[in-house]
């Protein structure tokens, strides 16, 4: 059998980047299951996570099929470690602002919503572009993911406005979440092999950045929130250099599969 990678096929690392983004954010958001601030949002976040984990599965299955040699979606999700994950650092951060020393914090839904808004605004553009990718299997996954991501954007945008332009308390918390998360969005734009792969799959990263900024500017204006200045450390999660938070997230997600490595369910 001819297993050469033809130019049309997206590189494995790029597929894993897309898959890990969906997987890690899906796992993070699923923390709200049973703990949501109100019942409707508890259900909403579980549904968003289901979509994201579903997207991750399709991408992991595609990588596994192409890689062969016993690789499965489960070995990719459960038996890789922090230095192999290619998700944006933004997506692995806990649902609260920065802490010092031994401080602990409760989850803050403002962080959840602002993050979902920032990433959905990006992924709507990415999936729309990839719907026409030369890699036909990636294009098929993008086509369906786009529909779901549009809805996630609608959900997070609605809440961004409702809480940003809400009470003094909700406004202050949304602004604090935005101030905390903003610097991590800079990672979207650093040029690496992944962006080269994206370009090869038909994405125009400059146009995507412009479209993202337009969506974000309009959303923040409606929400009466102020866009923080760029600057500070530019995270490198997509290049496998992660924050301290990813290890804990993976430990929780992977422990069952690793305790029963041959388990079938």
């Amino acid at each position, binding site marked *: 059998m001819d297993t050469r990678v033809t130019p049309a096929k997206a590189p494995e690392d790029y597929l894993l980047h897309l898959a890990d983004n969906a997987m890690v954010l899906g796992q993070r958001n699923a923390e709200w299951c049973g703990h949501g601030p109100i019942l409707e949002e508890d259900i909403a976040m579980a549904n968003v*996570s289901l979509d994201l*984990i*579903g997207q991750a599965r399709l991408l992991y299955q595609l990588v596994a099929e192409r890689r062969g040699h016993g690789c499965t979606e489960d070995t990719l999700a459960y038996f890789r470690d922090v230095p192999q994950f290619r998700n944006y650092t933004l997506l692995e951060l806990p649902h609260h602002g920065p802490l010092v020393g031994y401080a602990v914090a409760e989850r803050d839904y403002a962080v959840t919503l602002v993050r979902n808004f920032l990433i959905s605004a990006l992924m709507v553009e990415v999936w729309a572009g990839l719907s026409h990718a030369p890699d036909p299997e990636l*294009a*098929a996954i993008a086509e369906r993911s786009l529909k779901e991501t549009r*809805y996630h954007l*609608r959900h997070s945008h609605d809440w961004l406005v409702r809480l940003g332009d809400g009470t003094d308390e909700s406004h202050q918390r949304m602004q604090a979440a935005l101030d905390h998360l903003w610097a991590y969005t800079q990672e979207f734009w650093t040029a690496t092999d992944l962006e080269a792969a994206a370009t090869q799959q038909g994405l125009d990263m400059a146009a995507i950045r412009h479209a993202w900024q337009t969506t974000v500017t309009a*959303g923040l204006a409606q929400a009466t929130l102020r866009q923080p200045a760029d600057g500070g450390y530019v995270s490198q999660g997509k290049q496998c250099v992660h924050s301290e938070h990813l290890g804990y997230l993976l430990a929780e997600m992977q422990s069952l599969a690793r305790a029963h490595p041959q388990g079938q369910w």
Partner: protein
Amino acid sequence: MPRIADTDFDPLIQQAWQVLETLTDPEIPVVTLRDMGIVRKVLHHDDGLEVIITPTYSGCPAMEQIEDDVRTSLAQLGGPVRVTTQLSPAWTTDWMSDAAREKLRAYGIAPPHRCASVGDNVVQFAPRAASRLTAPDRPACPQCGSLQTTEVSHFGSTACKALYKCLNCLEPFDYFKPY
């Protein structure tokens, strides 16, 4: 070249459709998989039947159940059966038949608007998503038919539904989202 029988005149394919006609959606037992547009095609190959299905939502937990149901029920026809999942073209609620829409309404779920009529509005911005919808775009209450309805939550009891409330009869109801 492998033989693929003509769909309309192959008796085995017709039998298969008769069996498939009895399979309903695991989460909405009043509509069949065919009504929903999930079962796309039945092919008769030399080595058995192939059923093409298109999954709904990426994370829909019912999909594995659906695959299982198709395989088990067609096993009664004797030959080997394989189920192929086809992602593209992506499933859309526009594939739902009119009969299915009516059955949903009778079951208490407001059927989805045509995507063509909603278009990119799925992602359009408004502080209150529901209030922006003009009356013809708002789902009619499946209980009393009133168009005075409002969105309570973007997500309902399953990924494919949103939660609405009727302002006339005050009943809450699920709205099958255009997808």
